[in-house]
């Protein structure tokens, strides 16, 4: 069905707010970043000089940048895998609960409503080395917790803080996926002599694979691009560079280190990655694996 408007101008008028927002908050900054990436600015921001691809050359010859790529990959896959595993476990349990199902599911959805920065602060307080209850408990258990000094502990903290709210989202999708697995398949497998554990891994989990793949992409995109607030509120990328992801590095180099050209070049690289992930998302998720 097509809707026709009496005047040609009306559709444009209706689209205008959306187009304006896109232009002001996305297209214009993107264009600025793209332009900036080819210039070098002096320390006071008074003059700038066209330097071609030098910002990119600097970027890709800088070991710290590769370090950050590695950090981002470790961080993102940890967030995706931890978040999805915990959510799957909870969903399997929720699928079995009969009484109090609604209460249980509602509780699990709440974290999703908490703002990322707030979640970050929450975890920052819980893990504070001198007064955080979890840090103190860990100390009493013999773990010397100080994420200001220990890079691995800092990574664990940002992974926990970022994963926490994704669990709700993953949980909802896994629960829906589990409920779509026909009961009779599981019963047939039980008659076929498969233990509950085997039933899960040979029947249920393969049938969840479209959901799993979808969530993997969504969680990776989230960990890549939407965890700035959490990192800023907990570790600020430190100690050293140990929790500086690519997105955090753009901010850190540009606004803290004041290397606007280098930061812009990084933004351009990130825009490329976003484009690539969008293609993957459309290519594979739009026609996801179908079982009839």
């Amino acid at each position, binding site marked *: 069905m097509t809707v026709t408007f009496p005047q040609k101008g009306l559709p444009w008028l209706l689209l205008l707010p959306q187009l304006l927002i896109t232009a002001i908050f996305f297209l214009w900054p993107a264009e600025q970043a793209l332009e900036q990436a080819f210039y070098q600015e002096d320390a006071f921001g008074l003059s700038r000089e066209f330097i071609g691809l030098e910002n990119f050359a600097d970027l890709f010859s800088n070991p710290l940048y590769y370090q950050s790529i590695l950090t981002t990959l470790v961080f993102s896959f940890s967030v995706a895998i931890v978040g999805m595993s915990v959510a799957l476990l909870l969903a399997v349990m929720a699928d079995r609960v009969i009484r109090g199902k609604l209460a249980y599911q509602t509780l699990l959805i709440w974290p999703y409503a908490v703002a990322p920065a707030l979640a970050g602060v929450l975890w920052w307080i819980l893990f504070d080395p001198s007064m955080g209850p979890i840090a103190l408990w860990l100390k009493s258990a013999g773990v010397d917790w100080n994420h200001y000094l220990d890079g691995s502990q800092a990574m664990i903290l940002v992974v926990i803080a970022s994963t926490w709210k994704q669990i709700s989202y993953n949980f909802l999708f896994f629960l829906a996926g589990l409920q779509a697995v*026909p009961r009779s398949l599981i*019963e047939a497998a039980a*008659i*076929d*002599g498969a233990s509950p554990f085997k039933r899960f891994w*040979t029947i249920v989990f*393969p049938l969840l694979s479209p959901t799993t793949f979808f969530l993997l992409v969504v969680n990776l995109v989230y960990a890549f691009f939407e965890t700035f607030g959490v990192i800023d509120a907990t570790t600020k990328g430190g100690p050293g560079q140990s929790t500086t992801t690519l997105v955090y590095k753009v901010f850190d180099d540009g606004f803290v280190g004041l290397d606007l050209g280098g930061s812009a070049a990084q933004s351009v690289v990130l825009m490329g990655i976003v484009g690539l992930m969008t293609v993957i998302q459309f290519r594979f998720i739009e026609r996801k694996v179908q*079982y009839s």
Partner: protein
Amino acid sequence: MTDVILEKVGKTYPNGYHAIPSVDLSIEEGEFIVLVGPSGCGKSTLLRMVAGLESISTGELRIRGERMNEKEPADRDIAMVFQNYALYPHMTVYDNMAYGLKNRGMAKDLIAEKVSDVAAMLGLTELLQRKPRQLSGGQRQRVAMGRAMVRDPKVFLFDEPLSNLDAKLRVQMRVEIRQLQRKLGTTTLYVTHDQVEAMTLADRLVVLNKGKAEQIGTPMDLYNKPATPFVAAFIGSPSMNLLDAHLTEQGITVSDELTLPLSHPHRGAIVWGIRPEHLDVSDEHNADFALRIQAVESLGAETLIHGKVETTSGQGDAMVVRLSGPHLPDINSLMWLKAPAQYWHLFDAVTQQRL
């Protein structure tokens, strides 16, 4: 030898619903038993209790003398064919059939041998590498049967396995299931709501009504001597004519004014029944009663005539007559009928038991 025994088996669901009060049934080795009844009467519940997919609330289930109540489905040595086939969608036909054998730790080459034997028997050899979604409904049905057969179980359980097929395929598969079962000699418990399927497949039928076994017997027992009006109406197509009547010294009074002579010790309200195929066309002088014709269904090989027993009040009961061959009587005309007494079925109206 008795293979499967259900002793006072009952089921109450966790929500308190009392689906099966108590069923007794003993099944001989190699027997084909069909559980039949209208939708919601508890057929699946009973079958699933035998399979171990539902707990048994009361009573005992024994297979080859061994109590099964507490055993897992896998340990009962049964195989089940589900209504929706329940094939594993991500596995090939081969893997679907091999799954149960693999889980039991059978050697790979032995599995391959068994699967190919059964596949050959069912004409599935060409399809072994396909996924279920690449199969037609009939082929899926066959794979589901193959998966059950390959394990060579003590008992086959079927839950309405043909109801998702079209009418022609259903008849074909019905014949095939019966032949296979005869050949394998495996004790079978088969659930259906279709009385034709039930009559053609069963060695013995169990007619279930609201969770109670109304009657257990061979198809001909049930056809000739239904124990209750429910069984009488359920078995046979079109259904038996069942009329509210009164038994007096003179005989049976039908439609308040018509009396069919009979000497029988019972008195009071009864249900009088006669099958549509047992009514004969007669003439005014020899007939027992007349039918005012309301509708005629011509099927070629037979004709079904629907009408009302003709009475002075015009409030006679509805009846169906089944005549072989084509007939074209006029609507609203009278048809004179004879109801031979050897085909009458009498039931107590209160206890619903056969007299």
